[in-house]
């Protein structure tokens, strides 16, 4: 089986920010695809990268690890990384991993854009 591993990630570029919106469950099969795409986007050194998680109903530790790595890369490039629209189930994983205070997490993408998070 090789199909279904590519994560759909919609990208919206605006002025000084990039909004990346992965769609679907993020697990060991799909996190490499997410990691690769986020790496590309961070390579553009956007001042802000907002990851819209509103269409991600499930994430396991491989997805969390991917976002931790993205956070570290963003800091090294002086980019601000924001997680937006996190569903309760996904937020729970971040809470259990005690990462909810490590990331900047906002209610939705509109809030992130408006507040300049």
């Amino acid at each position, binding site marked *: *089986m*090789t199909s*279904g*591993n590519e994560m759909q990630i919609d990208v919206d570029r605006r002025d000084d920010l990039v909004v990346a919106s992965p769609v*679907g*469950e993020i*697990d*060991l*099969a799909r996190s490499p695809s997410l990691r690769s795409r986020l790496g590309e986007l961070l390579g553009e050194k956007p001042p802000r990268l907002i990851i819209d998680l509103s269409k991600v*109903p*499930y994430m*396991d*530790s*491989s997805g*969390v*690890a*991917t976002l*931790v*790595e993205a956070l*570290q890369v963003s800091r090294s490039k002086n980019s601000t990384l924001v997680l937006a629209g996190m*569903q*309760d*189930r*996904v937020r*729970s*994983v971040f*809470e*259990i*991993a*005690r*990462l909810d205070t*490590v990331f900047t997490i906002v209610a939705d993408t509109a809030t992130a854009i408006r507040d300049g998070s």
Partner: protein
Amino acid sequence: MAGMGGSPSGGRTGHREAGMSDAPSLMRLELVSQPELLAPVRAMLTSLSERLGFDEVETGHLALAVDEALANVIRHGYDGATDGRIWISARVVDEPTRRLQIEIEDQGRQIDPAMIRPRDLDDVRPGGLGVHLMREVTDSCEFERRTPAGMRLVLEKSIPTSRSPGRRDNKAGTPENGTP
């Protein structure tokens, strides 16, 4: 995917492993070590858990725990090889308390169970969270070496005597089609 062909447990007609119950399996699966199979296994576990009376939160936790266990086997037990064998069985144990027991076996690399520990969460870095998540969302999470090869993990979670629909917090792990 069904069946236990090749499983050294052999359907548990032989000796009993430590911590395992005599209760018959509700479900047995054999799968290969391909990440693509995590999603269908989560869906199956979710459906089984719901039928057993777990609420939405606990169902999600069980799916997450099994997902993390399988991911560990694929990544560490089989080093990412996609032709390794993994066996999953689920049973209900009634004594001393009613609980769902999920056993995951493989033929991959063995490791001293004492070395399988959650990492320090204050050390923020990618990876190493799987064991912590498994322990947090289950009542019991026990690793042991299998004979002659591989590892065995037994996860347990108490089955609620009644549903508690009021609990809406901490919803990790429900597959994408499980959103109410």
